[in-house]
């Protein structure tokens, strides 16, 4: 295997380490994990994890995992996606996976930029941002990933900052153990094209909200971190098994 090819100082290292820790804990409890990733810098994580994996195409992690989970319901399946991968090209899949409450976990590496193609704007880049594809400033408004997921029906929605590895590992663990669609947005600085490590001074943690509406308000501020929302609801797989057999 090649050595890790992320830029030194990349937020992805922290996600990798935190996930290794969280997955270790889950496996020690006797579960099997399989992962998948899309296209972009984040996607390389499949190669770096010592777990069954499938590095699929751009944006397509949620339907792939849905099919895998249906074929082997005992697996805990986790997908890594980027802001470009999950919210530009693959937004449709994320919305529907959340709506179905498919029992999968999606970890979204949000660095606000297309890193691997040298810094173009994504769906989470701020309006006005200049990049090679937007030399006069980004004409689009950004999307708030957690709000989108809450509105779509996700039953576990959280945000963490890549700097806070311990907390991140804890949230990953909870997301994997949650039965239903879990979504964790990781604010992941890109040292080459969108370095926001300084955000550490501004990040603040909030407690779980009691309702989706409260959670929506809570995560409005992109610096807010924590598990915004969690509820138990029948999963897609359970509903499918019940109706088919």
């Amino acid at each position, binding site marked *: 295997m090649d050595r890790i090819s992320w830029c030194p100082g990349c937020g992805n290292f922290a996600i990798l380490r935190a996930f290794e820790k969280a997955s270790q804990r889950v496996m020690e409890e006797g579960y099997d994990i399989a992962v998948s990733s899309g296209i972009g810098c984040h996607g390389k994580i499949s*190669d770096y994890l010592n777990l069954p994996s499938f590095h699929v195409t751009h944006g397509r992690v949620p339907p792939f995992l849905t099919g895998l989970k249906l*074929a082997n319901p005992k697996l805990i399946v986790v997908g890594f996606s980027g802001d470009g991968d999950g919210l530009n090209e693959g937004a449709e899949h994320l919305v529907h996976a959340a709506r179905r409450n498919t029992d999968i976990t999606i970890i979204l590496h949000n660095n606000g930029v297309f890193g691997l193609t040298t810094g173009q704007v994504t769906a989470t880049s701020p309006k006005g941002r200049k990049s090679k594809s937007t030399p006069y400033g980004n004409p689009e408004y950004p999307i708030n990933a957690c709000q989108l997921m809450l509105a779509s029906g996700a039953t576990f929605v959280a945000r963490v900052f890549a700097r806070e590895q311990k907390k991140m590992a804890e949230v990953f663990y909870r997301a994997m153990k949650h039965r239903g669609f879990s979504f964790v947005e990781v604010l992941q600085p890109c040292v080459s094209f969108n370095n926001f490590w300084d955000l550490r001074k501004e990040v603040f943690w909030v407690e779980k909200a009691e309702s989706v509406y409260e959670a929506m308000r809570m995560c409005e501020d992109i610096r807010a971190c924590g598990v915004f929302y969690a509820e138990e609801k029948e999963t897609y797989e359970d509903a499918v098994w019940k109706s088919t057999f």
Partner: protein
Amino acid sequence: MNVCIAGAAGDGIRGAGVILGKIFGELGYSVFVYQEYQSRIRGGHNASVVRASEKEINSHGYYYDALICLRDYVFEKHAERLRGVLICDSSFGLEHEAKVEFPINETVERLNLPDISKNIAAISVFCKSFGIEAEVVKSVVRESLGKSAEEQNIEVVRAVYENLDISVGQIRRVGEGKELVSGAEAIAEGMLDAGLKFYYAYPMTPATPILHVLAADSRCVALQPESEIAAIMMAIGSAFGGERAAVGTSGGGFALMSESISLAGMAEIPVLIILAQRSGPSTGMATFTAQQDLYFALNPAHGEFPLIVASPLTIEDSYRLSGELLNLAWEFQTPAVLLTEKHITESHTTAKLGGVVKREVEIFRERSREVFRRYEITESGVSPYASPPALVKANSNEHDEYGFTTDDAEIAAEMYAKRMRKGEEIAKAVANLEPYVEMRNGKDWIVTWGSNFGAVKEVAEEMGYSVAAVRFMRPLFLPKISGEVFCVECNYSGLLSKFLEAEGVKLKRILRWDGRPFTPEEIRREVERWTE
């Protein structure tokens, strides 16, 4: 005997065609039912052509021995084809020398039944006037309709049989009862017999009936995701998980699947795609048949990788080939396309399905410390398969034997060649699977593919031509033919014709691209026109 039932969308024309087909099947005839309908739910014009013969048939006919009209305005559209009896409501006042009229509408109203029962009334008028026993009609109606509709419709049959006293023919039992199946059912059954566990499809005519059949079958899980892209990605997910999965769509949906077909080729994931062609380009004529997507099916995605494409000749053949392709996809770990048509998926025929078996493939599923050598370089190109929890790594990127991403020139070249070598092995396997059908009747030939086969075979036998029909398109095996050659296809440029011409065959094209399938009469007319 060739019977057309015509009316508006919402009149139950399709159902009436199926029921009449079942009645003929019950009497021992070989039956083919063609459904022509518009992309609308109410109104307009729909027709169902039911052909029955003592000989085995796989096509409907052009001229009608009987025309059953459920609306007065549809008569005009069909009058030219009618060479026999018109059956319609007494109030229509239609002009035709041989006709059987019955107060269909009045009877249904008097019995206080929904309008849709008029189709059963009309079929009953046909059956009574052609001497079919009421019990045969009743038993088919009972078996075909749900419990709630059953009694009411039996009532209609009784009312017609009691009050109609005309005889215009005698349809006799000619043998043991035969089952009527649709192309969609045959395709579904073939996949199930080959071990299908998951079917994912976004509704798209004319592939949708396969989804309906499988959704109601507890032998597999059939789901309707958000798009065709999601459908094939779910299938790839299930196959990575070690379970057989398939998807079904038409041209537009197949276009969306392109990227994932390439992924399946690269990651060596078996997946079967049912491509049911309809008239294009773009939305085209959604409910009309075509054979325009041959080149698209053969070259559906970026990069080079082994792909298996086959096209069934009949509904029965669609059962065999769908099963065969699912087996081949798993044996060679690569995508396969069943290239078929609306004229197969939405038509019905009498057939006995059976013979497809699942050929088991070894799948390693144990937990392990070592990464599984999923893409081991082998002579045949086929490597061992594994599914989680085995430590197996699959990849859309070029990869080494363990599935790790690489751009190393040597490894990449070797891995690419390994995948491509599977193509040679597939060709060896396909050579033994009747890649084309040949029937010798004379020195000159009619060549075709897909559903035209039924009509072509009949004409060729009558006129003394040999028949060649291509089943496997990739790898492509072309028949060795000489003499005068006709090629029959439902497209504008002659897509199969071009392949034959590249082999030096001189041929005459018999083509249509109006969304309608060929009948034997039309092919005969074309052949005669060329040979005049």
